């Protein structure tokens, strides 16, 4: 993975569990009309995995996806195993694609007043670029799909990959998401939407405050997370040691509003995921919430948790790890699914960092500030609720 907390998955989980925030106040754009923004940047260098010549044909999101895939395949022992990878699929989520490339192209067009754009602009900006480069680089010749579903993109990608495997269409999928939209043009657009957090008096690091009274909005992050999903048979054949098992997926649409969340729509996704998994709500021990830190979004998600699990959601811990890694948009669901998998593997529930006063007032256990051991944890959910009213929930089980 490529994430604001680094690239080694276990170390990333440790940092998130410890509540270490990767959020910083950054200066973006030009001296002339740049601005300050709270961001969770990934310290990313594509070399040496990607040569400079190859990097010139890949957006930042594609580069991140290739590097995340390289590491995932290396960790599973599949790197260079062309035989095993020849029928492997690629299912990726991506919101914007190569937005920095589009920004550069528009700069040439509008500022230099020239039509002499970089001739490879088109293949660099397409949202399917990350999936394409993953397939080409690693010889994955199964279907390669890109799901662009805003903040739910990579949860949908993982969910659809899970179904394709469970339904017998494919044995192995490289599934996840990639997003790198922290260039100034995109950040300025997000700021105009009025959903971005402002710096907290305790410091920039404490500014992503899901569920807290002092929350002021979301913090954008960037990165790519790729999971190696396999059927039980294929995983067993090669003696794989799975981190966790995906057992259910539910998706729904609000059919309501472009940006305003809707409890009914979200509830249908969560219930559909539980039904798909054949899991009773009482068996769920942890929910990695969508929890972006917006005023409206967090309140609606708490309402949904109470509807599904009962008043106060007894026995369920609900935390938002976006409090420390920010909102990775098209890669958010993949990072949070990975963290949820490690929570099951380790028996450790990561906290909602910075949470002091839950608002609205609730009896739901939001794991404030400090993570905890949960050796009995067996089933967990990961929620992703997107602009446009697209909702996706994944159900994971300890193996």
């Amino acid at each position, binding site marked *: 993975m490529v994430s604001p907390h680094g690239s080694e998955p276990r170390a990333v989980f440790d940092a998130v569990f410890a509540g270490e925030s990767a959020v910083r106040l950054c200066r973006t754009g030009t001296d002339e009309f740049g601005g300050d923004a709270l961001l969770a940047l990934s310290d990313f260098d594509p070399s040496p995995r990607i040569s400079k010549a190859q990097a010139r044909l890949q957006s930042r999101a594609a580069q991140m996806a290739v590097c995340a895939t390289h590491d995932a395949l290396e960790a599973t022992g599949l790197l260079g195993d062309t035989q095993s990878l020849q029928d492997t699929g690629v299912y990726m989520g991506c919101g914007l694609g190569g937005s920095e490339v589009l920004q550069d192209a528009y700069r040439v067009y509008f500022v230099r007043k020239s039509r002499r754009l*970089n001739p490879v602009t088109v293949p660099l900006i397409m949202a399917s670029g990350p999936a394409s480069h993953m397939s080409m680089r690693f010889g994955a010749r199964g279907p390669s799909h890109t799901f662009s579903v805003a903040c739910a993109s990579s949860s949908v990608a993982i969910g659809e990959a899970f179904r394709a495997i469970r339904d017998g269409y494919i044995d192995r999928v490289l599934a996840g998401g990639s997003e790198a939209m922290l260039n100034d043009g995109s950040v300025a657009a997000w700021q105009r939407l009025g959903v971005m957090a402002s710096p907290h008096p305790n410091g920039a690091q404490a500014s992503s405050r899901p569920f807290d009274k002092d929350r002021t909005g979301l913090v954008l992050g960037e990165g790519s997370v790729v999971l190696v999903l396999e059927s039980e048979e294929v995983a067993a054949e090669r003696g794989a040691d799975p981190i966790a098992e995906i057992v259910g997926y539910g998706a729904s649409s609000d059919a309501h509003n472009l940006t305003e969340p809707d409890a009914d729509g979200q509830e249908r996704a969560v219930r559909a995921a539980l039904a798909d998994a054949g899991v009773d709500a009482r068996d769920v021990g942890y929910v990695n919430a969508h929890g972006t830190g917006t005023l409206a979004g967090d309140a609606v998600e708490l309402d949904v948790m109470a509807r599904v699990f009962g008043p106060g959601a007894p026995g369920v811990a609900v935390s938002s790890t976006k409090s420390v890694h920010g909102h990775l948009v098209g890669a958010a669901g993949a990072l949070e699914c990975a963290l949820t998998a490690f929570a099951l593997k380790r028996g450790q529930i990561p906290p909602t960092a910075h949470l002091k006063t839950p608002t609205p007032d609730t009896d739901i256990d939001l794991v404030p500030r400090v993570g905890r051991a949960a050796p009995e944890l067996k089933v967990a959910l990961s929620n992703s609720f997107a602009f446009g009213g697209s909702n996706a929930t994944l159900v994971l089980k300890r193996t």
Partner: protein
Amino acid sequence: MSVYDHIAKILAEEYEVDEAVIRPDASMAELGLDSLMVVEFLFCIEDEFEIEVPEERAEFATLGEAAALVDTLIAEKG
């Protein structure tokens, strides 16, 4: 620095092409550049030398021929 040397330096530094294969008679394929990379490389060269390579003249088999084309276009530009 000659145009050829300048282009060779770009290939080595900006494209990480192995210096051992950078020779005047090397084809683009031998330099590790596929067709799309060549298009992008030409764009980079145009920017570097502040020239425009007309589409009908963008034909060269080797690095040496590419450098000669750039030499000619610089001279034509005056």
